[in-house]
């Protein structure tokens, strides 16, 4: 029996101890009419060998193309050591560290993670993680509404340059909370949020504002000006950032005069594989002033009975298992193992390694832009600066081009027309440190070929 250790003799002895004659007898409190019949949609069992053969075949079906898609999930090199250590059974098969004395490994690691994420974001504190960037943004908005007690409007400004799936997840999650999500228009020329667009809101009661860096188009927002504007309206600032980019770009804690109040985003770029969209993790940092409104687990350093340093879950009075209906969130299990990997990743990168990796992404992207825009009709969609993603306008519909590129084993990017009706001919392309010059050349040749085929 797969994964069940019982011998026939074990079963007999155990049944005797219990005082019943069969396992079936143990279900005698369940009304007989509720007993399930045979499962019809579950096939016969496969051995591990047969299962692996099937999985290798299916994995191979999806493998092999050169990937230039970003849009919220990024291909980075992950050092072999990262998951080798993270998947040690002692990390992988433990649970939430409720018994602190028997969980000091996980607890200290999360404390180190909180320290690393806080310094990367230039914020005071970090929590132990949320599910992913999109649901993390929703939690950040809910937190801002709790924390900004002076604001009565429950109005949150969200620029149209924020990831479309993040915005729809935000809507779905805060739907019942009586919060007004107001979309701020973006500038078609720069692909960013301009102060002009905020004019109509000046002087209004705004509870919070989301500022993305880089934004969904890969463009750099003028975060300093936007932060100062939001603070002048007494709104809390939620910085939504790519953590890899923060190795070289100014971090939320240093934006404008006072810095962002909350930093949030997806931790995937820091050592977590793309894996079809998860498991990733959402990170969240904030200023000490509002830490008691933070959702999710927090690990604190303390001492034991002998005065020896140790680590424990703290401020649990915010959480669902204590506060029940008055909790800051219903979040319980989150993304511990992905955080474990990220912590090891960051410790092996260090500040310089991370900056070099982020810098290489930026450089490679600029190199691809140069190559692709040498093709007639291919242009940068926006002026201004970008990090490791760029929107390119093509002389054909993006969907058609991407389909043809995929036939040539190049996943050429994300079709922006899916989310922005004015951008049907625009593709969002990402290049990370994993791409070589010859990869970029492959893309260029394939694109030139496809455009010739489509446009004659």
């Amino acid at each position, binding site marked *: 029996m797969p994964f069940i250790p019982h011998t026939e003799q074990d079963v007999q002895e155990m049944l005797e101890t219990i005082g019943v004659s069969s396992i079936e007898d143990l279900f005698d409190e369940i009304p007989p009419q509720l007993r399930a019949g045979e499962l019809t949609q579950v096939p016969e069992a496969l051995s591990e060998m047969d299962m692996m053969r099937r999985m290798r075949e299916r*994995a191979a079906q999806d493998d092999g193309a050169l990937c230039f898609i970003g849009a919220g999930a990024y291909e980075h090199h992950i050092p072999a050591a990262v998951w080798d250590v993270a998947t040690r059974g002692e990390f992988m098969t433990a649970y939430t560290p409720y018994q602190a004395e028997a969980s000091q490994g996980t607890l200290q690691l999360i404390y180190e993670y909180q320290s690393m994420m806080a310094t990367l974001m230039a914020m005071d504190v970090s929590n132990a993680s949320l599910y992913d960037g999109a649901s993390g943004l929703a939690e950040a908005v809910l937190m801002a509404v709790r924390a900004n007690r002076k604001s009565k409007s429950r109005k949150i400004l969200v620029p149209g340059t924020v990831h479309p799936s993040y915005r729809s*997840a935000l809507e779905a999650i805060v739907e019942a909370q009586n919060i007004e999500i107001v979309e701020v228009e973006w500038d078609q020329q720069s692909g960013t949020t301009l102060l002009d667009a905020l004019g109509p809101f000046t002087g209004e009661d705004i509870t919070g504002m989301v500022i993305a860096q880089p934004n969904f188009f890969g463009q750099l927002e003028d975060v300093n000006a936007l932060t100062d504007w939001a603070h002048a309206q007494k709104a809390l600032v939620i910085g939504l950032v790519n953590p890899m980019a923060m190795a070289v770009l100014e971090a939320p804690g240093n934006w404008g005069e006072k810095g962002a109040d909350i930093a949030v985003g997806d931790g995937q770029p820091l050592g977590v594989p793309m894996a079809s969209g998860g498991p990733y993790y959402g990170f969240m940092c904030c200023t000490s002033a509002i830490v008691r409104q933070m959702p999710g687990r927090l690990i604190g350093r303390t001492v034991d009975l002998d005065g020896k340093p140790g680590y424990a879950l703290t401020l649990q009075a915010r959480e669902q298992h204590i506060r029940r209906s008055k909790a800051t969130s219903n979040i319980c299990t989150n993304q511990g193992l992905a955080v474990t990997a990220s912590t090891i990743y960051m410790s092996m990168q260090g500040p310089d390694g991370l900056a*070099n990796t982020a810098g290489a992404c930026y450089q490679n992207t600029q190199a691809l832009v140069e190559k692709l825009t040498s093709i007639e009709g291919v242009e940068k969609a926006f002026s201004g*600066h970008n990090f490791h993603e760029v929107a390119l306008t093509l002389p054909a519909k993006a969907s058609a081009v991407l389909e043809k590129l995929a036939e040539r084993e190049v996943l050429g990017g994300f079709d922006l027309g899916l989310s922005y009706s004015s951008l049907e001919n625009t593709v969002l392309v990402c290049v990370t440190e994993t791409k070589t010059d010859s990869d970029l050349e492959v893309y260029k040749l394939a694109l030139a070929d496809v455009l010739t085929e489509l446009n004659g």
Partner: protein
Amino acid sequence: MLIFEQSRSGRKATAQSPAAAADLSGLPEAFIRKEKPALPEVSELQAIRHYTNLSRKNFSIDTQFYPLGSCTMKYNPRGALAAATLPGILNRHPLAPESHSQGFLSCMYELQEMLKDVTGMKGVSLTPMAGAQGEFAGVAMIRAYHQARNDDARTEILVPSAAHGTNPATAVMCGFKVREVPVNSDGDVDVDALKTLVGPQTAGIMMTNPSTCGVFERQIEEIAQVIHDVGGLLYYDGANLNAILGKVKPGDMGFDVMHMNLHKTFATPHGGGGPGAGPVAVGERLLPYLPTPIVGKEGSDDAPSYRWLTDKDIPETIGNLSAFMGNAGILIRAYVYAVMLGKGGMHRVGEYATLNANYMAKQLEKAGFQLAYPDRRATHEFIITLSKQTKDYGVNAMDVAKRLLDYNLHAPTTYFPLLVPECHLIEPTETESKEAMDEYIAAMASILKEAETDADMVRGAPYTQPVKRLDDVKAARELDLAWKA
């Protein structure tokens, strides 16, 4: 020692990143980071040694018996890890075109079909990332259902007093008021009280079955009737699905919507606190509201093709709850587990989990411990109450739990459910051997003797762990959440 304390300026794990700094001169000065983050600067070996040694300060399923009630800490098959880390699965971009996703999508479609079957439901969405998010999706669907019928007066969700804390927290996140339903002394819901609590204001009820009391809710059909009669819906919290997997289908009990904790029932690792996966399953009435994305199948069984169903296919969906499709890598592991169990193995899960729990309950009772529900069958878990030991020796449930750590056994869940005083909620799971359980039973008997003869010693436990009991008050009062140089 913290990793930061091993850091030396200028030290690098050089093999791990581009050696040279990039030219960022194309970017305006205002955008560039001025001060480096204070990340540790260590060698690859230092990092490996540090985190390997930290891992050794953890209890885990792989190293200890871990009978944490309501958490289903069963063996996590390594085959699932091997399959989930195949390059074609690990490296697939979530937005890869369907032409490059048929392998992945076929696994997800088959998982949806299997979960529909074991739950007795009509539709499944795999996307919720944990049990609590599954609960959120489920209750949000209940809300959407009533709203679509312009049934706006339904403002209350009923929750039995023994429920998980996530249930009331979820109901509030979905905009409902929470009403607690009392539980009888035999662990079943007080149906008479329930009848006085329902009405046109009732949106639904959230229940686990078996309940958190470790017993099967025998009147579930009557409860379903009471709720449905007033126009409410029933939510099944799948936290305890392991007890009845392959034996009873929640859909047959009258539930309209449920979530499953794949990190419990489908053996995906708990990861030191996640990631989990909390797919939702629904009956006919809630099909239009399932969260997106879902995987659809087209073409014949011989030449199927799979595609994403989005809000274009499911216009009344409650929406997407993550950037992509949730914890896909965990879903792959659960798929592999289901494939390796097969239809024959699926029902054995509930059977042997129940056998183990009843065996332990009986043996602990013989050893002198008081069962919370001695007249009931245990399900996959059971509760003992240490009220007597607390009164007689001043040794409470927490003390006994801490002392278990000295016997190299993980403690069970303590002080939950809240309505049983000084309790241990014990869940052995089907993957534990009789020997492992016997060792636990012997340890408990030994601790009982220690409580009689040397209560002070038990109250000071544990003694063998990296630290003794920690000062939680100091942790909360003098908050230290991040290392500072």
